[in-house]
Structures are given as structure tokens and as C-alpha cells.
């Protein structure tokens, strides 16, 4: 019989892949997940889906899942299987031992955007209230930390001003450093629907992405700028808007700080930002810059969507400010169809950002240095809290090498694979005396860990995710946790073992604590989400069911006004020269997800089984490289090998690769430069050289690898 299994149970939950936050019905048969179907009432997807959320769920029952806690005395020892009680006690006593020996601030914690709001909130509480310091960070550090900084500075909140459907009222769509059809596919489809209806499209991206041209879609303007010149180009766009008086003076007078606007107009109208000056710097036709500026300013509704192509630069925060400046100047905020919107990579990056997993702020982006805010947490948590900012993720590694950081709790992250300058991080990890990892799988980072606590996938727990449109969506338990506990329960056990009493009956009580301590989440509860499905923050008495569009009447700044930042273009120190003449930039592909922890364990590998280096035929030919050949990519930081693929998507002088496979080790190559404000790494610009790997060398290496396997087996 070819009739399919009839699922016997269906649970509405939220996709854990990208930041779009699609609603899904997880259908099970006899306790086993048999299918994920898109939920028609999902506010972000309206019944649509992409390959990852819809099909790539088998990772959760992968044979690689660790389901028993592991400990070891040294990273050179093999793991020992232990009970939960033993593992938790061991982790607790080791972290305390390290603190006793090296000081309160010698340990820290990292949470992940793969985790729920409740778990993220608990991990920062663990750092602040239990470890007693502010050494808490999360993976948004390496992706959207500049968003929080740059948007907070200009419009007041580091979050998308709109909801996704708002794009259906946009007349001009400007995509900067993002490739939604690959990275945020369901939003990409919505964007394409709008473009097919006639909206104009501006794409600012070094690559000729699918967003630039695909079936029935063609960007009206594609600024294929040189990686690293975002700020120059955006300032030049501003230059045109100011010089040609295309800005919205009435909006600026009514809604913004006029003095700062005047300073900004003076600044950007300088000749040094004229398209004729910036064009050659960025490798662009000056007329195209003018065209983009006029189109954006003409609207009437122009909406900006941007991604890591803006943030992952040494001027990432400045780039985000440029976008804030532009939207304020043209009055493109405070209504449907406009706005500035970060496209978030991970399911809960917005939540990670909102909920205080940062060394300098509590939930709601409120500074730890603020006595009043800190007081409210001290009162609720019953402990005195550190009044000084803690270390950021990259600085934790720096401090480890300096000898002042010796222990870490890492939940759901793999910094050794995902963070830049891998060799430096490995060196730092080796200095640690106690690394506790909570994850689904052993990974690159767990090679340097001492305790492994087996976590739960998003199918195995209750909680909430906050998507890129600020929407708090419910995550519901579909199947029982494979290792016995939901992630938040494990953190609670660790808190208790370290002497801090934490009692929650269910994840909803953690959400209640979040609501109690975070103004924007004040009205959010499991009850509300049960009743209305989802809600966008801010959600409070004034907006009991949440807020779809921000900044309608005023900006969340002290005086209620938007403001302008001066955004000087400072070329990155990472530059091409004779030794490293090409610029490497990185990105992702539809079928794989970030470092591939999940998708590499699914059939999605059939589409993308390895990362390849996209190179223009011209650059390849002058190096004697043929399509499909293995090449060595080297930078000032390290080198790796991968397969070359001729591509018309990249221009001459630029090479591109994805970073989904650990074997690629692309972060051995990427630089240690980072954003001036947030230390978000400059993944998008590395000067490299690409050479052909001689076949003889390849053979030798393969033979050596084989020998190594024999030795370690």
C-alpha cells in the first residue's frame, strides 16, 4: 500500500533555524516526529516554509546525539560517562575551584541564539547572580551586535522597526549585505512577491546574488561594491540626498534632533563623499550611487533590510548608523512599508540581544552601570550584582591568553568553529581549566572541554523565541528530551549546585520573570501567547497585544527624537597587497545553516556537501586554476584548502565561500580585526591569495591524513 502514515498528534511550534521565525505544525506518529508542515496562521510565514524548517529535522535523532553527561580531568583524556548528578556536581565544584584560585572574574558564560529566551535569560542570570560577574556574552557578538549599537544610537532600539508583512506596502526595497532568498528564504519569497507586484529593488552587495537577479526579479540598481566600503557608499548616498535636498525636512523637524541633523548634513555633504570620489574607492559607477540615492529617497515608502554584510566589518556599527541616518533623513520610519530591519541569522538572535546576554547591559539594553536598573535585578534575585561591564567573547579568549580567564560555561555554541582566527581561539581554549559545554553534539569546541552536558533540541522543550521582527513565538515540546532534561532545567540544576536557589516549575515562570524585569516584555506570558499566538515587543499596558510597527509617534530615546551620527569612513586595516591581492568574503547557502551542526546531519548535505571557493574565471586563469580544482587560500592569519568554482557572481579581485563545514576551516583564514564598537569580527573582508594545490602535494597530504587516522584509531 502506498498510503502514507496518518500522524496522530500535531503541535504548533516555531522553527529554530533562521530569524524569520516560521510557525510549524510538528506532526508525530507514535511519539516520533514524521513531518513538519508550515502553519497557516504563522505571522511570519502564512503557511510557507523553506527546505530547512520543513524537511531538515532528522538531526535531532542523529546517531551523534550525546545523551549521557560526560566529564574528564584533562582535555587529553578520553571522556567518561557519568550520571547527571555527578556531572553537575563536577561542573559546579570545578567552576568554584577556578574562581577560588584565579578570582571571581576568571570565569564566564556564553549563551546561544539557538536557545529559548528563557534559557538565554537563565544563563545571564547564572553569570551575574551565581558566578558573580558580568562575563556573559552570546553569539550575536559575532553577527548582529553592531545592530544593537548602531540602531540604539540613532532610532533608539536595536531591533527591526517593522513586521515582515510591512514589505507588502513598500515601494522601494533596499537590501544591504543580505541575501534573503538563501539566508531568510521565506522572507525572500515575500520580498519577491512584492517585487513582482512592481516594487523597485536596490541591492548593495559585492556579489551578484540571487536577490539581484532571479526568475521574474531584477534589481533596479545593484551596487556591487568592494568589500569593506559600505560606510563610504552609504555616506555617498547620503551625500546625494543632502546635496539634492531629497530629504524629508518636515519629518526631521517634527521627529528628530535638528541640531544633529544639521551637523550630519554638513558632514556628508563634504566633497570627500561625492559619488565621483567614492565611486572609484568602492569600484562603482558614480551614477549608480546617485540612482540608488534618488530611488531610495523617492519612496514614497522605502524599506531597508540588511544583514551580516553590514555588521561583520571593522565599521559594522558605523554601517548600521548610516542606515539609521538615511531612514530618519528621508522620513522612512514610523509607518507600514518603510523602516530599517536587520535580517537575523539565528532563530533567537533578537531574543539573545533583548534579554541581557551581554557583558554591559541587562535585558532591554539597560546598562549594568545604571544603579537603578541594577537595583531592580538585585532586589528580584536577592544578590548584589557587579556594577562593571564584563568581558566580551573575544576578550574572554584574550584574557585566557593573558592568564586571567580560566573557566567557561558554553551553551549551544561552537566558538572554535564559528569565531574568527581559529588558531588564536584554540590557544586560548587550551589555557582553560574548566570548560563546561551544554550542547546536542560533541563539536570543535568540546575538544577543549572538561564537562559535557547533553542538551535538548528545540523540539524537546518549552519556551519562546523572539524572531527578527521582534515577534515572540512559542516553542513547544514535541517529543521528550532525548537526554532527559530541557536545557533550562539543566541550567537550574547547575545554579542550585553552585549554591544559588532557583526554582521554576515550568519555562513559563522564567518568562514571567523576564516580563517582571524587562519593560518591553512586560505584557508577554505563556497565557497571552496561548490566546493570540504571538506578540511583537514592546508589549505592555499601552500595547497589550504587542506592537507591529515601531516609532509611530516618537523614538524610544530620552527626548523621544531620532538622531544622526557622524559616520566617517575609515578603511579597514585589512588590505590587499602583492602577497594577498584578493578579498575573501563569506556567506551562506540555502540548504546549510551556519556551522552546519544540524543541517550537516540531514539529507541537506546532498545539495551542499562541501564549501567551495567562488572565483572569477579571470582571477582563476591568471593563477592557472581550473574549475573544480583544489586550491589553497592563505591570509596573514592562516591557510586552508578547498575546491575552486568559477562564478560570475563575484567580480575580479573578490573570492567568496560559505562557512558551513568544519573541514573548510575558513576561520583559520579570517582576520582578527573587529568592529570598533562591539568587536563583531570582520568576517566579510580578508585579504588572501589563492594558489593551486599541486596534485602531488594533495596525494602526500591524503597519505599523511590516512596515517594520522591509523595512529589515532
Amino acid at each position, binding site marked *: 500500500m502506498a498510503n502514507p502514515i496518518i500522524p496522530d498528534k500535531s503541535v504548533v511550534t516555531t522553527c529554530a533555524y533562521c530569524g524569520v521565525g516560521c510557525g510549524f505544525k510538528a506532526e508525530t506518529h507514535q511519539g516520533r516526529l514524521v513531518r513538519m508542515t508550515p502553519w497557516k496562521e504563522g505571522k511570519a510565514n502564512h503557511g510557507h516554509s523553506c527546505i530547512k524548517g520543513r524537511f531538515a529535522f532528522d538531526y535531532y535523532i542523529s546517531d551523534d546525539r550525546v545523551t549521557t553527561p560526560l566529564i574528564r580531568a584533562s582535555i587529553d583524556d578520553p571522556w567518561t560517562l557519568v550520571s547527571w548528578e555527578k556531572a553537575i556536581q563536577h561542573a559546579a565544584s570545578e567552576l568554584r575551584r577556578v574562581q577560588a584560585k584565579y578570582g571571581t572574574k576568571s570565569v564566564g558564560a556564553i549563551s546561544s541564539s539557538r536557545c529559548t529566551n528563557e534559557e538565554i535569560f537563565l544563563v545571564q542570570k547564572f553569570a551575574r547572580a551565581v558566578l558573580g560577574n558580568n562575563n556573559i556574552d552570546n553569539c550575536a557578538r559575532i553577527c548582529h551586535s553592531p545592530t544593537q549599537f548602531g540602531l540604539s544610537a540613532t532610532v533608539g532600539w536595536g531591533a527591526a522597526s517593522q513586521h515582515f508583512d510591512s514589505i507588502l506596502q513598500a515601494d522601494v526595497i533596499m537590501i544591504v549585505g543580505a541575501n534573503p532568498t538563501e539566508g531568510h528564504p521565506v522572507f525572500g519569497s515575500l520580498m519577491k512577491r512584492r517585487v513582482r507586484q512592481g516594487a523597485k529593488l536596490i541591492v548593495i552587495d559585492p556579489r551578484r546574488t540571487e536577490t539581484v537577479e532571479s526568475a521574474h526579479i531584477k534589481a533596479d540598481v545593484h551596487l556591487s561594491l568592494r568589500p569593506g566600503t559600505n560606510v563610504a557608499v552609504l555616506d555617498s548616498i547620503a551625500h546625494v540626498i543632502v546635496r539634492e535636498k531629497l530629504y524629508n525636512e518636515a519629518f526631521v523637524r517634527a521627529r528628530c534632533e535638528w541640531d544633529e541633523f544639521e551637523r550630519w548634513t554638513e558632514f556628508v555633504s563634504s566633497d570627500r563623499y561625492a559619488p565621483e570620489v567614492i565611486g572609484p574607492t568602492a569600484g562603482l559607477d558614480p551614477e549608480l550611487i546617485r540612482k540608488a540615492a534618488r530611488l531610495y529617497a523617492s519612496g514614497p515608502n522605502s524599506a531597508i533590510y540588511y544583514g551580516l554584510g553590514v555588521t561583520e566589518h571593522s565599521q559594522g556599527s558605523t554601517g548600521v548608523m548610516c542606515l539609521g541616518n538615511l531612514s530618519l533623513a528621508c522620513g522612512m520610519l514610523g509607518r507600514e512599508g518603510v523602516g530599517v530591519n536587520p535580517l537575523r541569522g539565528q532563530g533567537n538572535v533578537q531574543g539573545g540581544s533583548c534579554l541581557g546576554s551581554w557583558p*554591559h547591559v541587562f535585558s532591554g539594553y539597560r*546598562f549594568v552601570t545604571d544603579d537603578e536598573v541594577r537595583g531592580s535585578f538585585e532586589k528580584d534575585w536577592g544578590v548584589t550584582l557587579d556594577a562593571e561591564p564584563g568581558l566580551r567573547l573575544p576578550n574572554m579568549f*584574550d584574557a585566557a*591568553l593573558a592568564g586571567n580567564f580560566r573557566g567557561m560555561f558554553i551553551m549551544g555554541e561552537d566558538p572554535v568553529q564559528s569565531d574568527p582566527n581559529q588558531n588564536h581561539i584554540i590557544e586560548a581554549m587550551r589555557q582553560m581549566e574548566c570548560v563546561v559545554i551544554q550542547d546536542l553534539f560533541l563539536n570543535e569546541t568540546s575538544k577543549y572541554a572538561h564537562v559535557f552536558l547533553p542538551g535538548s533540541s528545540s523540539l524537546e522543550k518549552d519556551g519562546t523565541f523572539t524572531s527578527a521582527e521582534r515577534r515572540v513565538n512559542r516553542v513547544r515540546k514535541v517529543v521528550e528530551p532525548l537526554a532527559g532534561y530541557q536545557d533550562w532545567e539543566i541550567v537550574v540544576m547547575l545554579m542550585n549546585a553552585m549554591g544559588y536557589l532557583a526554582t521554576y516549575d515550568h519555562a513559563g515562570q522564567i518568562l514571567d520573570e523576564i516580563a517582571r524585569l524587562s519593560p518591553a516584555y512586560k505584557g508577554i506570558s505563556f497565557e497571552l501567547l496561548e490566546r493570540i499566538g504571538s506578540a511583537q515587543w514592546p508589549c505592555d499596558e499601552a500595547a497589550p497585544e504587542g506592537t507591529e510597527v515601531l516609532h509611530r509617534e516618537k523614538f524610544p530615546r530620552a527626548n523621544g527624537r531620532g538622531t544622526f551620527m557622524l559616520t566617517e569612513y575609515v578603511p579597514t586595516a585589512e588590505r590587499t597587497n602583492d602577497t594577498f591581492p584578493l578579498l575573501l568574503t563569506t556567506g551562506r547557502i540555502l540548504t546549510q545553516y551556519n556551522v552546519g551542526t544540524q543541517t550537516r546531519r540531514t539529507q541537506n548535505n546532498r545539495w551542499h556537501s562541501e564549501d567551495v571557493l567562488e572565483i572569477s574565471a579571470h582571477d582563476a586563469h591568471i593563477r592557472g586554476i581550473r574549475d573544480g580544482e583544489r586550491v589553497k587560500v592563505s591570509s596573514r592569519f592562516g591557510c586552508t584548502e578547498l575546491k575552486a568554482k568559477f562564478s560570475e557572481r563575484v567580480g575580479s579581485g573578490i573570492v567568496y565561500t560559505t562557512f558551513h563545514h568544519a573541514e573548510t576551516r575558513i576561520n583559520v583564514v579570517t582576520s582578527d580585526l573587529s568592529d570598533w564598537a*562591539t568587536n563583531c569580527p570582520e568576517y566579510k573582508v580578508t585579504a588572501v591569495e589563492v594558489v593551486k594545490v599541486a596534485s602531488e602535494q594533495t596525494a602526500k597530504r591524503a597519505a599523511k591524513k590516512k596515517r594520522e587516522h591509523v595512529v589515532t584509531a
Partner: protein
Amino acid sequence: MSHKTAHAESPVPSRAVPLERLVVMANQIADFFSPYPPARRAEGIRNHLRTYWDPRMRQDLTEYIAAGGEGVSPAIVEGVRLLGSGPDPKGYYGPPKA
């Protein structure tokens, strides 16, 4: 804009971030605030260091500057000078206050 980086053998030992890196980070901050007039530039730098930097990083930088501060942008020196002076204003987002 670029500045000379600090020497590897620095007069003070690093507590958190290697001094060379700390100076690079500080000078990047100075570059950002460079379009602002001197008083605001210094205040912007002060606010940034105070609200974002671990105190050990601030202390290392302060001591490094006291010991000569080779390679450190003059704007940073001005900003760091404000760190210890007077009551500590609250952290804020947005343009440096006048």
C-alpha cells in the same frame, strides 16, 4: 587613519586583553569619534569606554597612557582623562553629549 601600534614589550602587564590589541581597539574608537569637535569627541570616548569596557581593560589602558602611551591616539588620551574626573554620568546611546 592609522596609528602606530604599541610595542610587544609594554611597560605594564596585560590583565585581560593584550596591550597591542587594546591600543588597536582604542584607536578604532578614536577614529569613529574623529568627526566630532574635541570636547564631544573626548566625552564620546569616555562614555564608550565606561559603558562597554571591562574595568581591567580601562585600567590597563590608563596605566599604559600614564607610562607614555606610545601609539595611542591623542583623542583617546583626552577621553581617558575624563574617566576619573568628577561624578560618573550615566551611560547613554547616541551622539556624544556636548
